């Protein structure tokens, strides 16, 4: 087995992506979470570009640029502004304590790796083995969404999930057709925009972004 250097770097970035996911799980402050999210986007953009460069799939440059513009610059900026404007940068206590969350995270990672193993074995792409990491990132983001009670961490979890999916697309298939990717990016952008409006609505109505206030609708 001999991988070229840049694909080894891609592997390293994959590992980094997973590490950042865990860091996000353990992060208590919203601002820190946004920063980590930006870093995750950066790792994603670099790895996408590297895969594109090393395999000659030049359309991956566009998606790398898209990721860079949206997930490293635009969205973190938007979130920073939002946090500042809504004054919600304080600590957030997760609903399950952090070590327990981490342990659940490990279990999820093992599960994802197991699930991905048979698939990556038949994949023809060079970066096949990163599929498991992508899946683990998705699951960890999902876990974060479940364990956080504030609105912004939940959304960041959602976007981190999208990061994982993008990574799956680049690592397993060298990216989806560009039109689809554009569409996905557009959806994400509109989604964040809608959410921005939504945050203000929630804040206006509940005077807080804590979703604990939003537990009225339940089956009795």
């Amino acid at each position, binding site marked *: 087995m001999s991988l070229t250097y840049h694909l080894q770097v891609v592997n390293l970035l994959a590992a980094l992506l997973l590490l950042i996911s865990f860091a996000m799980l353990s992060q208590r402050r919203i601002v820190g979470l946004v920063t980590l999210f930006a870093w995750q986007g950066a790792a994603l953009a670099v790895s996408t570009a590297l895969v594109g460069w090393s395999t000659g799939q030049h359309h991956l440059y566009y998606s790398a640029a898209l990721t860079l513009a949206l997930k490293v610059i635009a969205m973190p900026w938007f979130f920073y502004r939002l946090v500042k404007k809504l004054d919600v940068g304080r600590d957030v206590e997760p609903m399950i304590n952090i070590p327990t969350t981490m342990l659940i995270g490990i279990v999820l990672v093992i599960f994802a790796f197991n699930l991905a193993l048979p698939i990556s074995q038949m994949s023809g792409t060079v970066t096949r083995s990163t599929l498991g990491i992508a899946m683990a990132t998705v699951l960890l983001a999902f876990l974060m969404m479940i364990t956080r009670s504030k609105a912004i961490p939940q959304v960041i979890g959602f976007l981190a999930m999208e990061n994982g999916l993008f990574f799956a697309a680049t690592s397993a*298939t060298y990216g989806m057709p560009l039109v689809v990717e554009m569409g996905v990016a557009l959806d994400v952008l509109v989604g964040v925009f809608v959410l921005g409006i*939504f945050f203000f609505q929630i804040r206006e109505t509940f005077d807080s972004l804590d979703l604990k206030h939003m537990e009225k609708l339940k089956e009795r």
Partner: protein
Amino acid sequence: MEIYWLLGIPLAGGTFLALWGNRRNAPEINVLFSLLTLVAAGVLTARIVAEGPIVVGDDWFFIDSFNVFLVALTAFVAFTTSLFSRPYMRIEKEHGRLTDKRLRLYHSSYQIFIAAMLLALTTNNMGILWVSMEAATLATVLLVSLYRTPASLEAAWKYFILCGVGIAQALFGTILLYFAAEKVLGSGGTALLWTHLNAVKDQLEPTVLQLAFVFLLVGYGTKVGLAPLHNWLPDAHAEGPTPVSAVLSGLLLNVALYAVMRSKVLVDGALGTEMAGSLMMGFGLLSVVVAAFLIKRQTDVKRMFAYSSIEHMGLVTFAFGMGGAVASFAGLLHMTMHSLTKSAIFFAVGHATQSAGTQLMDGIRGLIKTNPTIGWGLMLGTVAILGVPPFGVFASEFLIITTAMHEHPWATPFLLIALGVAFASIFGKVQPMVFGETELPKLPYQPALAPVFIHLGLVLMLGLFIPPYLALWYRQAAALLGG
């Protein structure tokens, strides 16, 4: 060509209404655009019926009997809902629950929502299908929270997050699908085109497709409202404005199920096993049972009918899961019946809650006295959705259950018990709402309930007699689903 009109009109409508704002005639413009969409859909349908399946626009769009039937249904219900919403939203505004700005948002999002659904139905690209499903969700999130009450915000948030997570699973499924397809079709745009995939479906890697289908089913299934992923549905239906509940229930759920079915055809071809069908049957049956028992506990009328939607979508999923010509036929028929009936019920319920000033069933009494039209509309709609003959729902439910008895006898008792429970609870709750004692005065204005009776009339007609060309059409569609 029709296809561009079909998608262009609602899109143009959305843009126009966003710019136009809520002038005096905005609702009428909304109706006009919906009508034009319906006309375009009609022309397209006529062409498909005459010429058979077509692929247009450089392989971008693909229309066969299965989706053109849904296109027609979508355009039709969208049109009648716009008719209903014209007076309804006006009264809501008079009650001070809505402002001009929000109505502008409503009209514009409504058209964009329709455009997104039509795109989802007609696109040939599984990736674009995903994109437009997500777009449909986004277009409706702000509609659910239109009233800006705490409860509606909560419902919209739940809707956004749960469906967002669900749809992310579907994206993962799509990626896996592309991953499998790329090896057969080569990378690039063609590997996600459904017609191309369908042609080579037996060469796709089974293990990958198996996993892909699980993700796709979970993802789109969340939007169908299959238990246990249904949590968002009752909230969104109950807290959003009634026209939104009507289109969510009558249309969006169908479109999501359509996405599942498109995937199922591919997966069945690749696997050659019953795996996809069994999964769908399991989810479907669970939804039917869970929803039936939850109906019993509801106090909010819109919530109750939302659960009834889960129940019926579960039934359709179950029918499609069984596969085979008869079950698929019954599933398609039931999809139609449910869309028409449920949107009619929501129209009637909308007026009922508006006149009573509450959505709690205890607060709505004696509709037959305050306004006989609403009362009869609600009663007939309820009777129809409960599957009482001669309404069409009876025919489709009957077909589904007899097929189930024949092929999967173990499932029959669950279905029958669930349907029985649902019948008893819904009927028991609607009856006093319509015939109970009330002190409220007669409704001062005449509600616009023509759509209700148009829908119910259609359901009744289809229950008594399915025109031969329509039956042929359903049969063609059922055959496409692997009948």
